[in-house]
């Protein structure tokens, strides 16, 4: 956040209260990643282990099916890849993926 976006003391709620629930969704932690999870939809059996074990609420599930990985939040820990029984997720070095993009 740049300094000019910072609000003055008259503009913010008192007491340090944050009134917008879950607004950290606007804060992206994807930049922390050194490895990126790549999912092979063919191999995925939608067991949802990746989803339940993700520390960053980054696995997107719709109707009980994995839709993808939200790279805005994914920090690249690789738990999903390690716990995937179908070996459907590969961790690729971020630098290599980015270079290919």
């Amino acid at each position: 956040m740049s300094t000019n976006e910072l609000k003055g003391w008259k503009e913010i709620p008192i007491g340090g209260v944050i009134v917008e629930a879950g607004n950290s969704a606007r804060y992206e932690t994807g930049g922390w990643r050194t490895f990126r999870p790549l999912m092979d939809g063919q191999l995925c059996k939608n067991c949802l282990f990746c989803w339940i074990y993700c520390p960053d609420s980054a696995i997107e599930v719709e109707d009980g099916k994995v839709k993808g990985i939200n790279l805005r939040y994914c920090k690249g820990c690789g738990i999903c890849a390690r716990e995937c029984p179908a070996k459907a997720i590969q961790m690729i070095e971020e630098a290599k993926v980015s270079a290919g993009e």
Partner: protein
Amino acid sequence: MATLKELSKREELLAGGHRLCAGCGASIVVRQILLAAGRNVVVSCATGCLEVSTSIYPYTSWRVPFIHSAFENSAATVCGVEAMYQSLKRRGKLPVDEEIKFIAFGGDGGTYDIGLQSLSGGLERGHDFLYVCYDNGAYMNTGIQRSSSTPLGADTTTSPVGKVIPGKQQYRKDLTDIVEAHHIPYLAQASPHNWKDLTHKVEKALSIKGPKFLNVIAPCHRGWRAGVNQTIELARLAVETCFWPLYEVEDGKLTINYKPREKKPIIEWIKLQGRFSHLLKPENEHILRRLQEGIDAKWESLLRREGEK
């Protein structure tokens, strides 16, 4: 008992964008608990990793009402919230059809150590709340100092492996036993690798009136010095070695929720963690032995107690 598919249709109540470490065990624990609890909960949290990383002003990851006040008082704080709920409900100032549950989180430092009195007070007074200790076995937020939950032999920044003293000299405190002595209606130990067991315990706990307690192992790869992707594996092994037995005590009746087909030796868990690497040296074998003895004794006592009629 909800399936993963059912759970996945519930609202995600811990938003992404929090700043816990990659691979943090605590956030996995909290996500699972909130999925089980649903949105009608108010959460209090002790100072610690979980709190500082999920509520960095002006951002919050909490989609449920959340209060952090200090380190040693997560229980007392939630008891105050709950007391106000009871009062306003009685006075007809809250919607009658709206039932709210209360969950207090604390790490092992904030629960076993500095917050023990506050927890004990809240349990004894009988407030209607669930206390969850996410136990990673040290003061991780301040840089991996020993707590009374740190296992025997562990290398921490205040129980370092030195030339004379090889890591922590004491067994860990058995907090779950201490909590049990309060004779509350429900308490349990759980682990995030067994999401089914954990979410079920949360659902069960929240269906019971009065004080409830969950001690949940929350591996910290930074403090344990393991791979960033090994969090769930370490939790699983903690259970397979019976370092962290999954059991519950409901109205005084103890049930072991998971018995490993073959109880693994503690070295299987130890060897994955840098904090125990010195225990693999021959001169420290006696510490490893003591550690195993302590684990065996606890497991045996649980089996005995479960068998009691």
